[in-house]
């Protein structure tokens, strides 16, 4: 009898196995060891991230090419290793930022840490997925903890509403995804990416329809328009650290697997899916740009910002396999910048209350100059103003689009980024020019200067780091 998996499979799966083990361990410790503090739990998970990340990078850089495991359902290579490491980092960062907040609202429970752990496990599986089943497994493993996290503040009506909405709509999206997968399996007889690529052809109506359904399901998960409707409500209703978490790592994992699925399973159908992705891209950029113009809630605004940025990322997917490096670089910059902005929002309070409205930021520069500069740099970066990192990210994506003859898409992206720049600049204007309405509390934990320096590092220091990504693009 053939073994279900070999020892090699287990070794290659160390990151995921470690993450699962640590997440389960946290649940166990939480249940049986009531005295363990939230900080200790978070530390435990961080340790798990560390092991998983190290293992992933080791595998990635030990392998000359791609390694597959579990009968070809699971893949690993350098690209995947880098993405996984970034996912762990993003999760760890958002987890660290949540602690103060959760303690302040008396929600510092070990379940939070465990849920983050499981969600990250889902992302990790997603990044390595090499068959439709693994994709689905990863998506669900990410989604279910996310629904709970969105409603983590269970006494708050808005939080519960957000969780419920997310869950209902997410279920529809999962259904679409699964239906698309079954169509593709039915018409091609294959589940693995490579096998599908070998058998799928563009003339096949069944496969085409299945592909569209899968794209719709994935578009929901990364919140691309017109499947974005849940995003503003969920971002606003969820606790701020959860919003930060949603805006960071899952976007990375979702966009990465979106791109891999298109590039690896349907390379011959590129002329079929390219226009669809392009429509999603332009719709997302437009919704992200126009939707945020009249928002007064910072978290809603960040939701539209993430929709818009997903649109820019989709340009890279539409550009085709050569743009993978540009996509990774773009997402890395966007995710890091977003984490920095949320870090700022989580460090500022008025008499114990966290910021929600844009006006709450007014007069920041007078009281917390370092924080204002830090946020200002990050906002300039995400608006795509040189020389900040966000500009280079956008440039890479647009270049990739132009190389793939999608000039009109790149032009549309540039024009819409001008519209989007308005609301980022408005935040800066509020911080710098408007009169303060209330005093900000004294800093908690992380001093604001740290953020300012971090912002500079993030924004300007990224430029030299782009070189390896560019080389990755060039092959």
């Amino acid at each position, binding site marked *: 009898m053939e073994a279900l998996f070999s020892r090699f499979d287990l070794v290659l799966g160390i990151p995921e196995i470690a993450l699962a083990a640590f997440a389960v361990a946290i649940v166990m410790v939480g249940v049986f060891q009531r005295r363990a503090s939230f900080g200790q739990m978070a530390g435990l998970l961080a340790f798990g991230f560390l092991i998983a990340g190290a293992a992933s990078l080791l595998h990635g850089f030990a392998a000359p090419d791609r390694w597959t495991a579990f009968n070809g359902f699971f893949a690993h290579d350098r690209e995947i290793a880098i993405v996984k490491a970034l996912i762990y980092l993003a999760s760890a960062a958002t987890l660290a930022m949540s602690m103060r907040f959760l303690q302040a609202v008396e929600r510092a429970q070990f379940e939070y840490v465990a849920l983050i752990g499981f969600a990250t496990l889902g992302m990790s599986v997603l990044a390595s997925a090499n068959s439709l089943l693994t994709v689905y497994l990863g998506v669900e493993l990410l989604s279910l903890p996310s629904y709970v996290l969105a409603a983590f503040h269970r006494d708050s009506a808005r939080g519960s509403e957000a969780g419920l909405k997310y869950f209902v*709509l997410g279920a529809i999206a999962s259904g679409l995804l699964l239906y698309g997968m079954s169509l593709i399996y039915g018409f091609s007889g294959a589940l693995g990416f490579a096998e599908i690529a070998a058998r799928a052809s563009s003339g096949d109506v069944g496969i085409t329809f299945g592909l569209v359904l899968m794209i719709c399901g994935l578009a929901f998960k990364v919140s691309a328009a017109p499947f974005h409707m849940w995003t503003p409500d969920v971002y606003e209703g969820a606790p701020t650290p959860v919003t930060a978490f949603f805006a960071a790592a899952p976007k990375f994992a979702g966009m990465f697997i979106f791109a891999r699925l298109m590039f690896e399973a349907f390379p011959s159908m590129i002329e079929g899916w390219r226009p669809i992705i392009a429509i999603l891209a332009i719709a997302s950029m437009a919704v992200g740009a126009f939707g945020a113009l009249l928002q007064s809630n910072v978290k809603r605004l960040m939701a539209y910002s993430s929709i818009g940025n997903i649109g820019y990322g989709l340009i890279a997917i539409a550009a085709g396999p050569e743009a993978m490096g540009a996509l990774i670089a773009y997402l890395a910059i966007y995710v890091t910048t977003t984490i920095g902005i949320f870090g700022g929002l989580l460090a500022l309070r008025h008499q114990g209350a966290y910021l929600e409205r844009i006006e709450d930021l007014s007069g920041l520069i007078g009281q917390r100059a370092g924080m204002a500069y830090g946020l200002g740099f990050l906002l300039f970066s995400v608006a795509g103003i040189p020389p900040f990192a966000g500009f280079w990210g956008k440039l890479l994506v647009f270049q990739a689009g132009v190389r793939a003859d999608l000039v009109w898409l790149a032009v549309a992206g540039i024009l819409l980024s001008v519209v989007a720049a308005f609301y980022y600049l408005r935040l800066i204007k509020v911080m710098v020019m408007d009169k303060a309405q209330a005093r900000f509390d004294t800093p908690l934990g992380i001093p604001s200067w740290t953020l300012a320096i971090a912002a500079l590092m993030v924004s300007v220091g990224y430029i030299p780091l782009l070189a390896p990504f560019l080389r990755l693009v060039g092959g």
Partner: protein
Amino acid sequence: MDAVVAFAPLAGALIAGLLARYIGKAGAMAAATALMGVALAAAVSLFLGLYAGDAQAHTTIIARWIEIGGFKANWAIRVDMLSAIMMVVVTSVSFLVHVYSWGYMAEDANKSRFFAYLSFFTFAMLMLVTADDFLQMFFGWEGVGLASYLLIGFWFDRKSANSAAIKAFVVNRVGDVGFALGIVGVFALFGSIQFDAVFSQIEAVKEARLVAGPLDLPYLETIAVLLFIGAMGKSAQFFLHVWLPDAMEGPTPVSALIHAATMVTAGVFLVSRCAAIYDVAHGAATLILLVGAVTAFFAASVGLVQNDIKRVIAYSTCSQLGYMFVAAGAGAYQAAMFHLFTHAFFKALLFLGAGSVIHGMHHEQDMRRMGGLARALPVTYAMMLIGTLAITGVGIPGTHIGFAGFLSKDAILESAYARGLDLEIAQLAFWMGLLTALFTAFYSWRLIFMTFHGPKYWREAVAHGHDAPAHAAHDGAHPQATTHDDDHGDAHVPHESPIVMLAPLVLLAIGAVGAGMAFYEPFFGKEAESFWHGIFAGHGEHSVLEAAHHAPLWVKSAPFAAGVIGLVLAIVTYGFNPRGMRAMGEKGGPMQAFLAHKWYFDELYQAVFVRNAERLGDWFSKRIDRGTIDRFGPDGWALASRLTGGWVSRLQSGFVYHYAFVMLIGVVGLGVFALMSVGR
């Protein structure tokens, strides 16, 4: 050493402009003045080094500026006799004006800014004169234009000062277009803009033609005319002169430094620097001669009837610049530079003297409200007298003994006469020059008589109180002065200026007396060849200089005679019968009106250019900019974005079934789209 000359004033400007808040106004002014003194010392030592033959002409390259293909431009300090003379003139007058301004601007609230501008101007002017290529010269050219704009409009709360500043700037732009096109032409023709590289190739391109569409022009002549148009703007020559009289709205030290001694002579310097070109471009040289002569005559005629003390001197400057161009056009660049050199002293003296009068009269500039001031301002009177003797060219005909203007002006007229031997237009220029000399004597002595002699009209002005418009404007700028005047009605009694203002007058007066005699031989006389060291080598043996020296005695005595006639006329009219002349001036007549309205130039330009430009600008602003670009551009897009934003936000109803519906529409839409593309 070379760099110190140019960059000490820049340092002074930066210190006075940026650090005044930390080191105090007096500190800023002292720093600017001291650094100006450093620059003066450096310039004098450079000049003496060249003069004594200890040093050779050389060029110090400071930095590379532009290098694009074959186009190269450097930041450089070119030291030769021509630039050394300019350095000495610029730094010495500038230093004296800095000192003088301690007194003149004592009450001004923004005096450190004033000093910063003065020093910046000096820096730009030095960059202009020490340039080694056309581009750096253009940089300095624009720099002095900017400084001039800032200083004319220094009292920015006066509407007239603002308009004058804008007028100066705009009129100069007209000339600058010519200059810039000239530089483009130089590069196109020679493949370089570096002076030596250009001048050494002139023989090779003498016959080149510029063919553009229907045009077929001699290339070199075209370039020469374009460059001269630049010179006309900066040096306020006929047609582009209108800004200079209005520029008198600036503080008087500015008028002395920029609008008399230095900046306005940049055009003469440009033509002299390009002597090699104008030696070959005879058509352009003749144009210069003609424009110079017309300007000299025109400005002198207008000066006859002006009543504002500064305007008289301003027209006088314009007229003297015309003289310099006559000399340059005649090929006697030495005479042009000589007059530039002496003129700097006596004109700065006259301006600063006028400033002293204005200061003593509590910022009254109308000569009709002066009179009999000789007793109240004895030192100023003596110095103004020296300046007048210098400008009217008093000396002993047939010898080289006389005031500065006597020697340099006569050199010009002799050159014009000599050139006239084979060029008829030069004869016309000579006769116009003689007539101008007569006019010059008349208006200069008229100024002296109206200001320092005759009835004391300022007593009436005191009785009238504060209705003098010039004074009212001044009060707006100087609140302290107003309260002072209101407390003491008799504060209007003229008073002599402080020593910081008189000392520069005395030093300039020494130059006005002696500069001509001291430097006649090197500039224009027997030592000229070794002095200029081949800068103006074009003419060879049949030099205008040589011919000028052999002009007949009547030519050499004629300017002096013209000056005496002018003096006599002035004595007869304004000296003996001031009240009669005053009545005549008020009554007027067609000739008087023609001159008083400056030949109706302002009215003409107003009707032809300003009105139409305003109408065009208005149309562009209303129809094109606001009506089209803004409406469909920024404003339209902003409105559309807002409306779209509102619409997107309204779609976000909050109901789950709406959201699910939108998702399903998306699925169906994309599915139909994809299946349709498959079907095709």
